[in-house]
Every structure is written in C-alpha cells, then in structure tokens.
C-alpha cells in the first residue's frame, strides 16, 4: 500500500510541475495510479478545463482514477476519496473548496464528494444525483474521457447557478439546464385543464349516447353463419433473424426528504456507487 501512495504522490508532483505551474495554491486536478489511464493530451485537456473553472468560480474540480481503492484504505470508496482529498490538501483557497470524482477500476466503484462551504453549497445531495446521471452513462461504456468531460461541464453549470444564488436542488430540474423553477402548475395551465378535460369527457359521453340512437347498421362479418370453423392446412413459422436493443436505465425519480446538502462531521458531503 505504501508503494502505491508514493507512486500517487510522484504523479501528483509531476502534474503540478507540468500543468499548473503558475498557480501555487491550485493542485493538479487529475490524480491516477496507472499511466495507462490517460494520454498526455487527455491529461492536459482535463487539467486546463478544471483550472479554468476553479479560477473562475473558486472551487477545485478533481478527477481521481485508481486501480483499486482498497489498496489505500480499509474503508469504503467514499472514505478513500475523502482520504485522498485530505492527504493531498486539495481544494481551492483557504476553505479548500472543491468537488472530487473518484473511480476505482477493480470493482467499478465511484465516489463523488464535495468539501468546503462553497463546495457543499454548490453540490447539494440532489445536485450530486443529477451530476451522477451526467457522467455515469459514459463510464458504463468505458468512455472515460466522455464521462470526465460531462462531469466538468456539469460542475461548471452547478457552480454558475450556485454563484447566482440558485444552486441545483430538488425543487426542479430540466434536461436543458438546471432549472430552479418549482413544479407548480400555472393558473393558465390549470384553467386549460379545467376546460379541456371536462369538455372531452362530456363530448365522449354525449357522442356515446348519440351513437345509441342509431341502431341500423350494415353487417360486415358472417360469424353467426360459420358452419365449420377454420381448418388450417398451412401453418408455418419460420425464424428469420434476431435484433437487440439496449437502453441505459435512467433514474427518473429521486427520493429526497429535503433540500440542501448533508455534510458529515469531517466536513465532506458525498455519495458513492457503481458505474
């Protein structure tokens, strides 16, 4: 386990030198313990994007990719994420504000944690669920860079909305931006429903009554006059081919007892799961 920590520290130090030499308070934004995970170009892209967001909004956006988190802690994957965040003193500014996504490849575990006043306020419990839905579909198909890009883009949106005083929370979410509009029907919609639905129902009932007034109808079948039912003399079923479609199951409804962020005594908030 010790060897792994040393490796990780060395990689982080290298990144500090390569990627963000000008920002002493900013750590590198991508941590990993296997060189095969990223190419230099990918590392550079992720770090540049993360640095831009951190500088703009004052909150670090971290990505950690490990072979197996159990080599670093006896706890769970979220404990590992908190450990990495603490050990490397990650986060922006004095408050060490930040959000971190950690992937452990061995058993496809992930943890998403936030720290600091700004980090916790910007990434609420509900917001973390929404954020997970943004990147998990990519990871399920092993599209790592796609997932990380989606993660960074979503983090940027979350921070922008938090800065505007409207952090993403469970009072509303739409596919096109993180709307804070509550799901309350407008009076116009209510009036429309109040007129349209009874109109349709009344029309259906009245048309049904009207149909009863007409009883003279041409017959179109001769079922009553079948003397010998269907005698099948050809009954062939031939298999031709098979097709397969796949659909990622989206979490449609989230159960939250309330709004905001649940922060542990260690100052972290977060969630974990499988990808």
């Amino acid at each position, binding site marked *: 386990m010790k060897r792994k920590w040393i490796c990780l520290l060395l990689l982080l130090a290298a990144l500090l030198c390569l990627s963000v030499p000008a920002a002493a308070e900013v750590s590198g934004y991508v941590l990993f313990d296997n060189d095969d995970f990223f190419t230099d170009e990918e590392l550079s892209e992720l770090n540049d994007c993360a640095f831009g967001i951190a500088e703009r909004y004052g909150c670090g956006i971290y990505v950690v990719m490990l072979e197996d988190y159990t080599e670093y802690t006896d706890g769970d994957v979220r404990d590992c994420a908190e450990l990495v965040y603490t050990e490397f003193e990650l986060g922006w500014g004095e408050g060490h504000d930040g959000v971190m996504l950690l992937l452990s490849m061995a058993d496809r575990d992930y943890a998403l944690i936030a720290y600091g006043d700004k980090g916790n306020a910007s990434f609420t419990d509900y917001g973390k669920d929404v954020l997970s839905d943004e990147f998990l579909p990519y990871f399920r198909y092993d599209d790592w860079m796609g997932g990380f890009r989606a993660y960074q883009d979503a983090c940027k949106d979350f921070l922008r909305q938090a800065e505007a005083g409207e952090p993403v929370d469970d009072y509303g979410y739409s596919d096109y931006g993180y709307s804070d509009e509550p799901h309350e029907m407008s009076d116009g919609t209510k009036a429309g429903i*109040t007129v349209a639905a009874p109109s349709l129902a009344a029309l259906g009932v009245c048309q049904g009554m009207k149909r009863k007034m007409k009883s003279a109808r041409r017959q179109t*079948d001769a079922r009553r006059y079948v003397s010998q039912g269907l005698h099948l003399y050809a009954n062939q079923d031939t298999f031709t081919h098979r097709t397969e479609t796949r659909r990622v199951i989206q979490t449609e409804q989230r159960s939250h007892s309330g709004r905001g962020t649940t922060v542990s005594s260690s100052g972290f908030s977060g969630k974990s799961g499988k990808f």
Partner: protein
Amino acid sequence: MPAQVTNYQCPACGGPLRYAGDTGKLKCEYCGSEYAPGKIEEHYAQHDQTAAEASQAAQDQAVEFPPTSPDDEIWDEASHQWNTAEDHLRAYNCPSCGAELICDETTAATSCPYCGNPTIVPGQLSGMLKPDYVIPFKLDKAAAVAALIKHYQGKKLLPRTFSDRNHIEKIQGVYVPFWLYDGQADADVTYNATRSHTHRRGNEEITVTEHFRLRRAGTVSFKRIPVDASSKMPDAHMDAIEPFDYKELKPFSTGYLPGYLADKYDVSQEECASRADERATNTTMSAVNDSVRGYDTAVPVSQHVHLRRGKVHYALLPVWVLSTRWDGKNFLFTMNGQTGKMIGDLPVSRAKYWAWFAGIFGGLAALLAAFLWLAM
C-alpha cells in the same frame, strides 16, 4: 303473371283465414276454426293454379292509358312519370268483394283495402319464383308496438315530444325475400411477426426481438349467410335485425302468408352475392388472424382469399315494418318477426344533447377546479 288472387277461406264457414304466429296455424276470424297451413294449401292447390293462369291472362291485357296528344304538352312530364310508375303496378280482383287491387309488381301477398281479407298472388311465388324456405311470424302486431315503445326507453337524447306525439302511420308484417348463401372461403396469409423479451443486465435494459415469417392458410365454411333481396327494404335495417333462428326454417308454403304482406325478390342473387362475399371474406380473415398466437406483433404482408360459392336458397323471413312521422320526417323501424329484435334510428334532441354536455362539463369542471386550486 296472375291477375287473380286467392283468399284462403275457411272450409267450414267461408270466412277469411289468417296465419296466427302463436299457434302456427291458419285461423278463421269468424268461426275460430284452425287449420295447418299445409292442409289448407293442399286444399287450395287446384284453386291457386287456376288463379295463376287467370292472372297471367289478365296481365296480358294490362290497363293502357291513352297516349298524350300534341296539344297536351303541359301534361307530358306528369304523364310520363305516371306511365313509369304504372309499369311497376299490377291489377288484380279481390276474390271476396270483387274490388280492383292495384299492387306493386313484386307483391306476393297483401290485404284487400276494401274488405280487409288477406289475399295471395300465387303466381308470384310459384315455379322459379317459389321460395325454398319460410320462417313463419311468431310475434304479432301488439308485440311489435310494445317493442317500439321499449325501443324508445333509455334513450336520453330522444326528444320528449317524439314518443308522445309521433304516431305509427303504418305497421305491417312483411315476409321479406332473402337469399341465403352457402359457401367456403380459402385464405392464404403471410405475416411478418415478432416476439420480444426484455431483461436487465446491470444498469441496462436489453430487449431481444426475434423475427419470424409466418404463413397461415385455411378454409372456413359458411351456411346460409342472409342478404335481403328486396330493393324496398334498407340493407342496414335488414342486416341489423339478424339473426334469424334457422331451426325454424320451414319448406315454403303459401299457407303461412295470409294476413301479411309478402314480396318476391327484385334483386337477383348474383347482385346480392357481393355482400355475402364481403362478410365471408372478413370473417375468414379474422379467423386466420386469430390463429396467429404467441407473437407480440403480426403484420400481414400478403393475403389471398378465394371464395367458393355453394348453394343459394331463397327464403321469406318475417319482418314487422313500422313507420312513424314526427316533425315532418318519416322514421322507419323494423322488427325481427321471429325474435323481436327492434331496429330503427331515432332523432336526437339538440337541446338535450347540449344540456347533457353542459351538465357533465359543469360537474367535472367544478370538481377538477376544486382539486387543482385547492389541493395543488
């Protein structure tokens, strides 16, 4: 074509005989004697033959109207119309009172408007024109009137004044000519079918669809698909009063006719066949489609139906025809004279229609508004 018609008269007292549906016998209205139709028909067979011959002779001497003169141009059109109508009329003499009866050319049984005696035109229903079967009337005029009143019940959009003020202008038991078609339909249908099953693996929902090409070919046999052979009777009404119970089909006898109108066919069995074909085709296709089981979808891609026509029977079936008049319009109702099934389109009261609409709309809107504004 016979010019004389026949009354079936009571062999006991000479009074007119009428067919009574409840007993299935011919009954004398005067002395109450009852006779089996076959017996009476046998009794009058010789008499009918004579009447038919005499009727044919009279037909040859049909009434001729004087030709219009050039000076009467103003009457040309009317005269022409009268002549056209006259072409479809036949004149007979009532054997009871001697009055001249003017009947439609298809009339086979009627009543004398002067003495009221039921009369039969034997030549209309003999030889090639003789029906194979008849289903005698089981229900009488009172049952038809009662059925009409019942037909009005429960119709919420019926104008209030319709049932109160409309009058039955005419009620008549009619033996309607029908063709009964036997036959077979062979169908050969090819389908594209699919069967799908979905399972979950991890966070993915995987749907596997198996595609099949199916072929179903089979035969359905039909017996006695009825098609009315009278142009005077609306097809929709005649179709809608089905079914008739064929167990009560009897070999034709004129003994069942006294007291009712009877028409001979005026639409040939070739002309009517297309309606029976359509019904047989639809039923066969439906049966073949139903034989495709175990698939989620089955879309026919090719279908061929070959009809093999069998025997065609000619039958007279009992129908009560009631016509009423209301608000300047005629309304026609027909009742199956065997089963009592009543058919007829009724007028719709616009006021009632919109009153019901407003009531349902208002009630639902109030409930919905209360829910939307108070509960949400």
